[in-house]
């Protein structure tokens, strides 16, 4: 049952990804299949709950298969979309690969296999998951409802209505765990393992649009091996899952912008929607994308597209707030809505942020290499606007998130502790973006172009 259920998820993801764009690379389709499939299934689960239909494996699978059938028909009959994609993929040419490419890919593969083995071996044990995400998944799978789940409605669990309660967290991870429990899994760790593998494949796919294969493999390896992120990828917390959606959403947005492939915008939109369906603070990425979209929309006068993008990208966040209100799943608001000035708070945030950015133990070479790439590209950024949008999106998302952290009233924990836990983990979403920039930025791209010429062709071309 578990294999059938997960195959359904992956097939659903493939159908949705291909329906959105026929210009996706094979690696992108394979990498997006699981995250997109499971994300949409959690949407289906919440709508079933709203319709008072018990969330069990049968209706979720039925909705999934109906969607698959509909999309497969759409892909087959409507304008030969499937054929179009097959033609696109069949234009595949042998990538310029080298021993370095093979070495980096092999190293990334070893990291992946060892990490997935660890993920699958240990059951859920991290505190946040045992106390919250995995527990909610388990209970939803048993009781068939989220809105009336005993953890939220039983007076025995009165502490669930306190500030920063797990109840108020957007439910993608919880429902994804519920899905595998419903399918009969003993633990929910297969979800985390599949997210990790999918991320590696999709990141490789989208980065290879901008960089040589050798460089892409090296960037993928460095992204995967980022110490703190790798450690958290095998836990059941929501941070790595969020990093997958947020970073891929932004990267597809960048691919849409620079490669001028309109359909990639909708792939990015879906991923950004799922990003704010995984963690509420994901709206920082949505906000960044909306800002760039606004600038682009006004400049090109594509207001309809702009309105659709902004409206849909904010939908999960707005829907969740309405859901919480409608079913009285409310907790005291810890967010300060008015602007204020607190120099002590700013000093603490700045100090802790500096510690994080300069920590090689937590993020390896990520920030160092990003800084080196950024400084070396200053001329290209100023003169050629090289990856200005990539940098702008990264910067805006980071600023928005830091403002969110500043605006929260931490009654349940100290600000220092929040910076050392939540903020530290939120930076996972930026790690792929920074490595992407290192790989795709002007100078490193130029350098690896030279490497490719040295290996493959400049001599023969001159002849």
């Amino acid at each position: 049952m578990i294999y059938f259920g997960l195959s359904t998820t992956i097939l659903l993801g493939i159908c949705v990804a291909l329906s959105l764009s026929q210009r996706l690379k094979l690696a992108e389709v394979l990498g997006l299949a699981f995250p997109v499939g499971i994300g949409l299934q959690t949407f289906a689960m919440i709508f079933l709950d709203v319709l008072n239909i018990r969330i069990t494996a049968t209706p979720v699978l039925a909705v999934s298969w109906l969607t698959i059938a509909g999309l497969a028909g759409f892909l087959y009959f409507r304008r030969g979309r499937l054929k179009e994609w097959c033609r696109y993929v069949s234009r595949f040419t042998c990538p310029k690969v080298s021993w370095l490419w093979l070495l980096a890919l092999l190293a990334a593969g070893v990291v992946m296999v060892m990490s997935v083995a660890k993920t699958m071996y240990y059951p859920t044990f991290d505190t946040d998951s045992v106390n919250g995400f995995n527990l909610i998944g388990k209970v939803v799978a048993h009781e068939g409802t989220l809105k009336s789940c005993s953890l939220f409605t039983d007076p025995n669990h009165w502490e669930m209505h306190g500030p920063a309660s797990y109840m108020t967290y957007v439910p993608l991870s919880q429902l994804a765990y519920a899905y595998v429990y419903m399918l009969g899994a003993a633990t929910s760790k297969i979800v985390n393992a599949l997210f990790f593998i999918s991320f590696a494949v999709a990141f490789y796919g989208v980065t290879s649009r901008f960089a040589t294969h050798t460089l892409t493999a090296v960037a993928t390896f460095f992204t995967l091996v980022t110490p703190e992120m790798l450690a958290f990828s095998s836990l059941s917390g929501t941070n790595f899952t969020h990093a997958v959606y947020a970073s891929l959403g932004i990267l597809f947005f960048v691919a849409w912008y620079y490669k001028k492939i309109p359909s990639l915008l909708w792939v990015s939109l879906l991923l950004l929607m799922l990003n704010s369906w995984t963690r509420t603070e994901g709206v920082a990425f949505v906000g960044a994308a909306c800002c760039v979209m606004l600038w682009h929309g006004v400049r090109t006068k594509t207001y309809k597209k702009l309105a659709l993008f902004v409206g849909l990208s904010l939908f999960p966040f707005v829907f969740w707030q309405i859901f919480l209100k409608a079913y009285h799943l409310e907790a005291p608001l810890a967010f300060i809505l008015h602007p204020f000035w607190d120099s002590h708070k700013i000093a603490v945030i700045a100090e802790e942020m500096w510690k994080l950015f300069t920590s090689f133990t937590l993020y390896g070479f990520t920030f160092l290499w990003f800084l080196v790439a950024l400084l070396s590209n200053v001329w290209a950024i100023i003169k050629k606007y090289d990856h200005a949008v990539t940098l702008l999106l990264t910067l805006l998302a980071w600023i928005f998130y830091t403002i969110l952290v500043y605006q929260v009233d931490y009654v349940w924990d100290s600000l220092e502790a929040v910076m050392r836990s939540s903020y530290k983990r939120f930076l996972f979403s930026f790690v792929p973006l920074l490595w992407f920039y290192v790989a795709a930025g002007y100078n490193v791209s130029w350098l690896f172009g030279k490497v490719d010429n040295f290996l493959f062709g400049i001599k023969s071309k001159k002849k």
Partner: protein
Amino acid sequence: MAKHAHKETTPPSAGPKKAGKPAGKKRPVAAPAPPQSPKHPMLRWLGGAFGFKSMALAVVGGLLFYGAAHDNSGYQWVWTNLLKGNWDFIQKHRKATLDERYQMKLGFDYVFCSYVRDNTPEDAVILFPLKKYNTEKGGDYQLTRAINVKNWVTHFVYPRKALYKDEQETNPRYHDVTHVAIIAGHGYEDLDYPVRERSYFTVLPKKAQTVNSE
């Protein structure tokens, strides 16, 4: 090799310059050979991809990374502890059951919760002692602070319900208690019957149960 072959097939007299000159006797002019690449494209690709230069680059790249990562505590930890350490451990304990894997990570806290789960009915409401006593040592064993987090305990005893004696005044479920968890010898006072043989950690029904003997 390829250049040599090229010379052999096109003699010097057949070059384009000489072909343009009027000759007394018309000699057959060989058609200019198409520009030939020295190797088959596939071989050239393989040569570029996996040739000496490529190998040298990989060695240099690998050594550079190794040299840099060797001094980086983060990457060192990733390899020695997170990847290799766990991999070796997993290979050694491949056949561990799910319960054993939980125990490896959560220790006695999990052992106790799973004991409570296995010895109570699914609809049980279990009373845990006052939180301040729950981390005391009982014999050779001691629970950690995790036992004082209701959600943590619920994760392992669900669908049973857990509550603490601290909630006596606030929790309406307090009156529905069916079982009492004994932790470090605390909790016997909440039973409706006296117990002679006492152990440090166990779970007992709140009310004395009558045993039906046939």
